[in-house]
């Protein structure tokens, strides 16, 4: 796993809120074309880590390197402009707007000379993206509230893919989905590997973690227990790492 330079690496990241330590010390390298799964019980610090990487929280100590360069994200916008996108568990989509407007939410395309919205270009680019990722929605003009949960997650992931140049964070990407839809979204996630993006995924489903990930990183109560290559470990080992019971 030393074949490529890490896209993003966390080095001895420590985070405390007042006197409460959320992350003891955490180091992780994320490489392009790889999926790393972050697992642990509730309260283990997974969400805090996601928020640190996406710029919502700044680490108390320790460093973040992006393509080898030391980086500090002032806020979520600066992480975004550095090519890091998050797909939130509760889908950050505007329900009453069409798919194509959601795809460009906050980053709408405009045309000269008056700076008006370029709806046809947004529709067209959305169509291309949706076709490319094989996301089955009735139309790019469909209103989000008319889509199923799986279709919505597809739109959210497509949006992240469109804007991410380096890293996508997936926070429980299939938590709200049924069996068939989960399978569909999992296919989509695997297809992202070919786009040369690094992917960090939080999931509670170990089956899913073993299906999708290249490496598994275990957290317990803010402590990094270890990182395993998925192919060289099994569920029993991971479960005992998560629970601390061997």
């Amino acid at each position, binding site marked *: 796993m030393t074949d490529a330079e890490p896209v993003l690496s966390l080095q001895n990241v420590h985070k405390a809120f007042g006197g409460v330590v959320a992350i003891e010390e955490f180091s992780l390298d994320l490489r392009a074309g790889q999926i790393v799964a972050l697992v642990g019980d509730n309260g283990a610090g997974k969400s805090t880590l996601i928020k640190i990487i996406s710029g919502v929280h700044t680490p108390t100590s320790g460093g973040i390197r992006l393509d080898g360069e030391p980086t500090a994200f002032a806020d*979520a*916008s600066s992480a*975004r402009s550095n090519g890091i996108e*998050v797909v*939130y568990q509760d*889908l*950050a*989509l*505007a*329900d*009453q*707007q069409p798919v194509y*407007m959601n795809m460009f*939410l*906050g*980053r*709408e395309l*405009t045309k000269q000379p008056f*700076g*008006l*919205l370029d*709806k046809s270009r947004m529709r067209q680019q959305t169509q291309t993206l949706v076709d490319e990722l094989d996301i089955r929605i*009735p139309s790019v003009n469909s*209103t989000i509230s*008319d889509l199923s949960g799986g279709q919505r997650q597809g739109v959210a992931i497509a949006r992240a893919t469109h804007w991410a140049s380096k890293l996508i964070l997936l926070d429980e990407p299939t938590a709200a989905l049924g069996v068939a839809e989960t399978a569909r979204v999992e296919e989509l996630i695997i297809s992202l590997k070919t786009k040369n993006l690094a992917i960090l995924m939080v999931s509670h489903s170990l089956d899913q973690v073993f299906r999708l990930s290249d490496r598994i990183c275990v957290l317990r109560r803010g402590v990094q227990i270890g990182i395993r290559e998925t192919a060289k470990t099994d569920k029993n080992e991971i479960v005992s790492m998560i629970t601390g019971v061997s």
Partner: protein
Amino acid sequence: MERLRSRSIGTDIQQWIVYIGFLAIFLFFALTLHDDGFLTQRNLTNIILQTAPATIMAVGLVFALSAGEIDLSFGSIVAVAALSAAVAMQHYSMPIGVIAGLAAGVFIGAFNGVLVAYLKLPSFLVTLATMGLFAGIARTMTDLRSIPVVNETFTGIFGSGKLFSIPSLVIWTAIAVIIGHLVYRHTKFGAHVLATGDNARAAQVSGIKVPRVRFYVLTICGACAGLAGLLYAGRLQAAKYTLGESDLMTVIAAVIVGGTALNGGKGSVMGALVGSVLMGMLNNGLILMNLKVSDQMIVRGLIILLAVAISLRDTKR
């Protein structure tokens, strides 16, 4: 799939309801009030002219409601703006009067905006309070006296004048509606207003400056109310604290009948225009039917109830 289709048909009906309602009420009055002069060109023109201030306020309110906020204070802003313009014109010149009126509207709107966007107070309560506050200020400004507006340039531009035989009130309405529609449907700002009203958190994490959007929509409401105040002062050739007082219900009804969602994320400036003219037509027809003022209020209240029921039917969240 069945459910999906029936839902989209439901939204379609909602979109068209204002036009259908408009036609139905127009036909109803045209048939029943034919002998009372409803269809005369003079009466129809009058309806348009009378609704001009309400339409312009409605344009502002579309932005506020779409962003998930509300403005209840625009009626009071109308009075303060009209009085400011009238008083400024008594002492200074016509342009100063216009600036004073518009500035009063923008200032009060921005005041609402700061309280809502940056102090995070709910707009319903903020504007409920400022409605009373500025209604009181309008009363103290001139000790309840009415101020005449005699400047003929002003009354021409904002009242009875015409340009190429188009009444100036129609021109102002057209300007407000066209600019409003363009900004609402075809600019980033319009998209951000809708996103904010639809899902403020999604808007925030997508990099939209949600507080700024909230500030601007309330300022726009104030500016529209300021312009409406000038139009009232121009048409009536006087300013009084009662101006705009009775518009609150009419304007909210016009906007909601026009397809703008009370809880944000969806709306239409064109719909608000049609809704506003519909409300004006309703007022006009009820008067021609010789209904008592109290009965007119009852009928209008019932229509607003119906409008709200239709508006909320599809957006149970």
